[in-house]
């Protein structure tokens, strides 16, 4: 226990052990003990609640879900399903095009702009890829899927927010790369399954994994403001 003695030089080396000095006043001692107990209890409760938050839903976490959520959210929220239960078995190619109505009433629809392609080439040969390439579009799309599901009618406030977010991402990137004026954008998501290894089985239990390329066109969305 060399540690204990070299602790806080100048002071703790001579740990006062109730030798010459008087014992601390009762109030101080009680206060210290109470604080120690509180620290211990909080640590144990925290660990227990985080466990219930991280573990799969079970009778205990269902029964105390309100308490668990009240404690864990938002600061201690976590999810360690890293590539689990199965890693994604598809690549997504997300593209966008724009629509512009000229003053004389003619409608111009642009060609497709490959947003994912920009991300992929930003990642390629970079030792430390940016979050903007690896996470922005990927997580925006997965959050959109979570809130919308199969169709494109937003049913919650969160779903609307994700739609707005995707619109902003597409609009910002097209403006940044290609410029031009437009009032609406449309997204197209091509889902390309990763080919299973030569003679190996398919991508495990994820039965929903598509076997062929799927293309999804999203509705035209109004670009709200071009202020920033």
């Amino acid at each position, binding site marked *: *226990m060399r540690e204990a003695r070299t602790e806080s030089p*100048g002071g703790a080396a001579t740990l006062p052990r109730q030798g010459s000095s008087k014992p601390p006043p009762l109030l101080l001692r009680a206060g210290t003990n109470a604080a120690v107990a509180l620290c211990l209890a909080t640590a144990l409760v925290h660990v227990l609640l985080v466990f219930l938050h991280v573990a799969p839903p079970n009778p205990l976490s269902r029964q105390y879900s309100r308490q668990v959520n009240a404690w864990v959210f938002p600061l201690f929220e976590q999810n360690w399903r890293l590539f689990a239960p199965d890693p994604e078995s598809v690549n997504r190619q997300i593209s966008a095009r724009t629509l512009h109505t000229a003053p004389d009433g003619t409608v111009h629809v642009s060609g497709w702009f490959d947003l994912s392609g920009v991300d992929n080439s930003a990642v390629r040969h970079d030792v430390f890829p940016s979050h*903007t390439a690896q996470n922005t579009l990927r*997580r925006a799309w997965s*959050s959109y899927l979570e809130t919308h599901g199969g169709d494109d009618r937003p049913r919650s406030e969160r779903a609307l927010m994700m739609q*707005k977010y995707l619109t902003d991402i597409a609009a910002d990137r097209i403006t940044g790369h290609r410029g031009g004026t437009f009032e609406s954008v449309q997204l197209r998501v091509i889902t390309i399954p990763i080919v299973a290894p030569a003679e190996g089985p398919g991508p495990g239990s994820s039965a929903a994994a598509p076997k062929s390329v799927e293309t999804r066109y999203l509705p035209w969305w109004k670009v709200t403001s071009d202020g920033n």
Partner: protein
Amino acid sequence: METEQALVPHRGVPRTPDGADAGPPRPGPERVGAFLAVLTERPVSLYAAAVLRIGYGFLYLVFLLREFPHRDEIWGPGSPWTPELARQLFDQTGWASILTLSDSRPYFETCYALALVTSALFLLGWRTRAVSVLFAVVVASFHARAIFMTDGGDNLILLMALYLTLTACGRRWSLDARRTRRRASAGKGESGSTDSGADDLRHQLATSRRTLTAVLHNCGMFVIAAQVCFLYGSAGLYKVQGGSWGNGTALHYVLNLDLFRPWPELSLLADEHDVLIAVACYLTVLVQVAFPFVLFGRLKYPVLTVLLGMHLGIAVLMGLPLFSGAMIIADAAFLPDRFYRSLGRLRQRTGAEETGAPSDGERALVPPQSAPAGRGSSAG
């Protein structure tokens, strides 16, 4: 043996500070007493806490600098996740962030600069307790502002930043430690005791404060250890449920994700060895599930080594150095102080050989006293 049980203080029978040996198993109450003594008197794993501080401070600094060209797009008023959307989400989730207090660009740039300075000061261990709170506020603010751009690495850094505010992570390898050492060697013997009542009370208050600091630190380190165990445990157990980890093809799919393939040639090369891939799949799951259980024995060293290799692989092959770095630092918390002290001694010895100075004690870590002052006065 001395710090084998260091990180998880509730475990094992700690020796009492006066050197009484653990010896034969002691009756229950005595064990509880010994546990309480360690809990309240001895902050455990101070070097590991310092490594966490230095590691996460450094990592966040590098992250902020890496994203310098994209800072407005990620956290600024020009982000596609507009300040308005962020505030709307905060209303729903209860988050808060200093970044949404104003939408002006200069305000954002000030916050970004503040984040850089805070990370650097945290890494150096300057006024650590106060700076650690500031660091936690900064990390939480930046995390919350760009919540839809975060991944597991960011999440872990946030949790650690929060927990580190509880610990005495500035006691070792820090500017604070250097200042304390200097003051101690400068002011030795000055504290002559005058036996007055006020002095007594101050003394008792100091003891109380020391006790609370130690308890808070130990609780913080315990929570950090538990957190890392939960991380690996759940990552492993969720993988067990997946078919592709079971049939050994999961990493084939991982290696073919465009966004996590910075070196396609390398990924392709690894992907060609399907037996190797299957072995790596099984090893990943096994090591992650085993992690919480091997921490208390010697088996933890090979497991930590395998994990280090795994994370280095992820960092390079998948282009996730931030995530891997965060995990490696978390793993480093489980190395005993004994290990870090011998590292320090090694550094001292090599340093001493270079300068030809004697290598006793912590001398080599302490710069010569008042050298800058002397130089200053001679110049002036």
